[in-house]
């Protein structure tokens, strides 16, 4: 009765298999190398992650997963990247995969070809470079039309002025990529953290990692450091970072809800498991629904990144995914704490690590409200749409 599988269906089935294999190796790696005790220890570390582990992740092929083979990458898609990012996020690994392998490398690979760009991309795939993209103004705007820095031609090179905020990695970046307007458009300028004329502050987040705040005053850079790119390419990169950020939040949601469900089944009060009480059962059902809602929209957003869809659709899906994941991560954290009771507000209990991670990842690149507003700006109400 059913027709022969189409070539598309066969290709999809093969890809699904590949994703499953990757999933298995991520799970095995996370179980062996990324215990929660490690994340707990690294909370007060400087830098905020372990550079040796970042190289180890590169050795697995994961920092270059999305990069073309010419840079030592694998040229895979977001269905694969999602699996890696979700697995690492679930174990609270502080290594900056989304900021570096998705956001910074994504912007870099869309820049006009240059020696410096190629070297940097190769080093990201090798795990030896950890660049941070510096693109948001101090107000945290998501708009791309007014870069935080201005680059003025000066002799052979450039002079940069301006101020930016909310940069990840907050510490441990090997270089910063400053987004600046130039007389001809926009460009990224690769700058070493200790450069004179560059002031770097570290604003500490709830989970112990930092966001860097950068101020450039008459910062001179040489001509070769300017990597030109289109705003549209930057927008496409931001979509990818948003969706992968939503994937991280989703991983946290899944873990917090699983911890809570276990607790409900084992914690005894009034002589029975507290999960036998209907008020908690119904709230658990609500948590489950919110998790599944997030899974559905994040899944669609990841698929949109891998598909040939319009930029408008990509950006709309990215905002929907981030809005949902951030909202549900915050509400799941709240419910997880309440249903655990007092133990949940201790540092010693691991739920605290997840809650603090949510508080750090949900606001980054715009929180739920910011993305709901952005979605509606992109898709204003129109009359006569039958839903």
């Amino acid at each position, binding site marked *: *009765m*059913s027709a022969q599988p189409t070539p598309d269906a066969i290709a999809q089935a093969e890809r699904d298999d590949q994703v499953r294999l990757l999933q298995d190796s991520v799970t095995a790696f996370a179980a062996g190398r990324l215990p929660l005790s490690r994340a707990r220890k690294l909370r007060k570390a400087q830098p905020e992650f372990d550079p040796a582990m970042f190289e180890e992740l590169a050795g697995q092929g994961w920092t270059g997963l999305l990069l073309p083979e010419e840079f030592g990458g694998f040229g895979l898609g977001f269905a694969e990247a999602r699996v890696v990012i979700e697995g690492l996020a679930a174990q609270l690994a502080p290594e900056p995969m989304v900021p570096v392998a998705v956001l910074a490398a994504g912007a870099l690979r869309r820049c006009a070809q240059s020696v410096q760009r190629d070297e940097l991309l190769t080093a990201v795939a090798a795990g030896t470079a950890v660049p941070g993209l510096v693109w948001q103004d101090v107000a945290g705007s998501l708009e791309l039309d007014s870069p935080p820095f201005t680059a003025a031609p000066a002799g052979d090179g450039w002079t940069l002025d301006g101020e930016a905020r909310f940069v990840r990695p907050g510490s441990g970046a090997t270089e910063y990529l400053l987004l600046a307007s130039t007389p001809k458009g926009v460009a990224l300028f690769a700058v070493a953290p200790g450069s004179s004329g560059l002031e770097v502050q570290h604003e500490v987040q709830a989970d112990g990692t930092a966001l860097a705040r950068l101020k450039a005053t008459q910062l001179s850079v040489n001509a070769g450091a300017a990597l030109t790119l289109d705003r549209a390419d930057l927008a496409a990169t931001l979509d990818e970072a948003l969706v992968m950020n939503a994937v991280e939040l989703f991983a946290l949601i899944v873990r917090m809800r699983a911890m809570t*469900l276990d607790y*409900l*089944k084992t914690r005894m009060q009034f002589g029975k*498991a507290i*999960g*036998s009480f*209907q008020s*908690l*059962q*119904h709230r*658990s*059902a*609500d948590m*489950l*629904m919110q998790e*599944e*809602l997030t899974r*559905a*929209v994040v*899944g*669609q957003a990841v698929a949109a990144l891998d598909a040939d869809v319009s930029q408008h659709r990509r950006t709309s899906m990215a905002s*929907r995914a981030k*809005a*949902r994941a951030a909202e549900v991560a915050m509400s799941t954290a709240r419910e997880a704490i309440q249903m655990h009771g007092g133990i949940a507000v201790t540092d010693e209990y691991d739920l605290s690590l997840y809650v603090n991670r949510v508080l750090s990842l949900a606001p980054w690149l715009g929180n739920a*409200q910011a993305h*709901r*507003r952005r*979605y*509606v700006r992109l898709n*204003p*109400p*129109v*009359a*006569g*749409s*039958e*839903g």
Partner: protein
Amino acid sequence: MQKTDWNTLTDDDFRSQVRAFFHANYPEHLRYPKTRLRWAQVKDWYLTLSKQGWLAPAWPQQYGGMGLTPSKLVIFMEELELHGIGRAPDMGIVMVGPLLIQHGTEEQKAYYLPKILSGEHVWCQGYSEPNAGSDLASLRTEAVLDGDHFIVNGQKTWTSLAQDATHIFMLVRTDKQAKKQEGISFLLAETSTPGIELRPIRNLAGHEEFCETFLRDVRVPKENIVGEMNRGWTIAKALLSFERIGIGGPKQSQYAMARLEELALQLGLTEDQGFMDTYARYKLDVLDHAALYERFVDQVRRGETLGSDVSMLKIMGTENYQKISQLLVETAGSAGGLVGDVDMAGDSFDWLTSYYNARPATIYGGSNEIQRNILSSQVLGLKS
């Protein structure tokens, strides 16, 4: 109409044929109906579908259905919704037919199925009772065997459109000694049988869409039992889970959302950040629910059986519908309590119909509280 195997068409061809037929034949004035359509309004359309052989898309072809594969069935349903086609009294098609095909005798199938397809029999559902709502298994309408008839006594309620029905399918108690789920049987009766009395119930909106059904010494032929004696509960439960994806769709909240958008534009609220923040929240709730719905529909397309987790669709869809319809009323401001088509800045809007329609949605088909019980016990494994 000769027999066609619709499943041999490509999805695109099938979709365009279905769409063309709906466009050409469905009465324009019945598109996007505000309330449940009565038999008198919708009978001609029912018979049009019947002539076309499209009345029972899910039934096997041997019983006069289209025998659609799950993926073709999804297309058929999508096109019904896209064209705003109202729900006809369809209990015979979606409940009695599938029930008889699975559990009926050959005689029952041969007698009832053609009469459902011809429109000669119109069915209503007799499940709920005044004291058996969410706890349906505690129903007390009793059927006692007396020779070759059952004598039925009791009362059913919320019998939707019983006024239009020629037949009723009921759950009745046939063994008072057994555990409550185990003494229930499935029984068919003509509504014209002496002793059956219907009293329409006026609802919150002032309409008469459902009835109370009184049964006093009603004699029902013994052969009208479906399946084995005292096995009715199992049969009914299977039908209810079949119902759950249907009532978990996003269509109603999408429709209410479209009305909200029109009203907001009319009132110039797109510059009102307070309104827009709530609107954005609900808009994404509707879109994301549709994404989740799509995941379950994919499961249906692949021919997989849906698990208990499908309950979440109904909860979310109906709760979105309620929130949006309430926001519609609030957006209307001082005019919020006005009934029917109301003038707002030169255009006419009706918000109370959405408001009223959304109220029972969280109650029927298994209340949302019951659905949450199902999720917590069967999906999460929480025991009471």
